[in-house]
């Protein structure tokens, strides 16, 4: 599949933003963070900015951006529509919490909105992942690792951005969060390795299967319907990533998992600092981009079998 910049930017930036919002919601549902109100608003603002930047990039890639509001109408059947509704709805409790933080009032309304932020952040990323896992025409995305990977990578990159932002305030990584980080990082690594292993063994239908001519013999695409590329071969027939996957997969894992985990280990050993969290956040976000690029670019669409794509990934 063609890895559109806008979709990668949306899923990684918004994923990180919602991950951070989820964690902030969890924190404020228990007690306000021991921060100045200005700094607390910076945290909420950065998370919201990531979300809004992602949403804007996904709207700008549309053929008709001015009609984007229509995408909120079909939540009964469409995961894309549900994602849009959840994404916008999540910004309401964020605004309520921001006002509460500014006035220093942490009553039931603030707590309820903090819970709502966490729930809606989780729901939005869940909807994002379901857009892809529900596409039967792209068998790789129906893999069981896709949904948990989306949720955990969002949480993971959001957590690292939060850690980096909090580092200058002296709020370090506690023992329990550090353990949670290590567990999440290892789980992401395991999910991606399992996904890639199943991707290499999975079979797609070939020309004989999709045309129904396979029952007559072995089928070879003799002549394409057109001499030049068309929308389908450009959008669904993207091959670059599969050629370079042997290099890109380790790069994704090192940036996304290994470097941040090393930073967590370093801080646990040598005490809190600013450099390690910053490096971890940058690596995690960059790694998420590489992982997401591969997620799109590696996946094969069934329609390419009509053009003679083999059952095995080349």
């Amino acid at each position, binding site marked *: 599949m063609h890895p559109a910049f806008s979709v990668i930017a949306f899923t990684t930036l918004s994923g990180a933003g919602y991950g951070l919002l989820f964690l902030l919601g969890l924190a404020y549902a228990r007690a306000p963070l021991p921060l100045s109100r200005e700094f607390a608003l910076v945290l909420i603002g950065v998370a919201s900015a990531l979300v809004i930047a992602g949403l804007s990039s996904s709207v700008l890639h*549309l*053929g008709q*951006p001015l*009609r984007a509001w229509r995408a909120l109408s079909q939540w009964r*059947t469409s995961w894309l529509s549900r994602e849009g509704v959840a994404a916008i709805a999540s910004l309401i409790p964020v605004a309520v919490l921001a006002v509460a933080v500014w006035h220093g009032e942490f009553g039931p309304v603030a707590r309820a909105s903090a819970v709502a932020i966490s729930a809606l952040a989780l729901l939005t990323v869940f909807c994002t992942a379901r857009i892809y896992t529900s596409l*039967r025409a792209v068998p790789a995305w129906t893999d069981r690792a896709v949904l948990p990977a989306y949720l955990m990578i969002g949480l993971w990159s959001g957590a690292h951005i939060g850690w980096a932002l909090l580092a200058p305030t002296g709020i370090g990584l506690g023992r329990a969060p550090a353990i949670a980080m290590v567990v999440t990082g290892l789980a992401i690594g395991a999910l991606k390795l399992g996904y890639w292993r199943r991707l290499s063994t999975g079979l797609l239908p070939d020309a004989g299967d999709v045309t129904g001519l396979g029952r*007559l013999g072995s089928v070879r695409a003799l002549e394409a319907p*057109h001499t030049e590329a068309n929308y*389908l071969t450009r*959008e669904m027939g993207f091959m670059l990533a599969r050629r370079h996957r042997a290099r890109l997969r380790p790069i994704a894992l090192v940036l996304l998992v290994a470097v941040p985990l090393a930073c967590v280990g370093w801080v646990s050993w040598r005490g809190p600092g600013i450099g390690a969290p910053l490096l971890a956040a940058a690596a995690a976000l960059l790694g998420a981009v590489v992982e997401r690029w591969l997620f799109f670019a590696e996946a094969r669409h069934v329609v390419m079998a009509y053009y003679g794509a083999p059952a095995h990934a080349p």
Partner: protein
Amino acid sequence: MTALPPTTARKLGLVIDLDTCVGCHACAVACKQWNEGGSFGPLPDADPYGKEPLGVWFNRVHTYEVDRGAGKAPMAVHFPRSCLHCETPACVTVCPTGASYKRAEDGIVLVDEAKCIGCKLCSWACPYGAREYGQARGVMQKCTLCVDRIYNQSLDEGDRQPACVQACPTRARHFGDLGDPHSAVSRLVADRGGYDLGPDLGFKPVNKYLPPRPRRDGPDLAPAPAEAEEALDPAALPPILRWLDRVLSR
């Protein structure tokens, strides 16, 4: 509205005969002409008359070679591919705007180009490659089953069928109601063993494909037996025949 109608009164669709299709692309060209040419102005393609034209075609004709094993001649099968107007199409339910819909009255799957935002998700959801994105219009486009012909009172009754069906010189394309078991197309499907594309995907295509008829097997590939050269001794012939043999052997 992207919710699917529970049932449709009719199931209009195409039956495509892979036995008689000769791969002339007339259906594809007629489709392009009806939907994008003529009174609608110049082709809304990128670089339409240049070196690398890029535009939307609702119908694409592939050609396959079927190797039937040793001793049998390989078959060339021409395979027109277009929207199958599925009974439970994923392209409709994934649409976030309601631009994609399936008509309850006849089952035609359409895109409302005034509502489409061009997010392309429907083209990702379709395993048959039926939807193509129109760069110039910024919206998704697809086969309409010539909804603007088949009900068009200003056309002669004989012309009220999809452009591709009318253009086919070998009558490899048939149009009708596949929901009615007594319709001509349904009987054709029953007689010839018409089949669905990708039935395991579960989208229940309405269009059916008729398989190529069985071919005569065996002798096609075996080399024709060479005529045994008869031994002839010209010297033994009478002079006239010897002269004739010499002339004819030149």
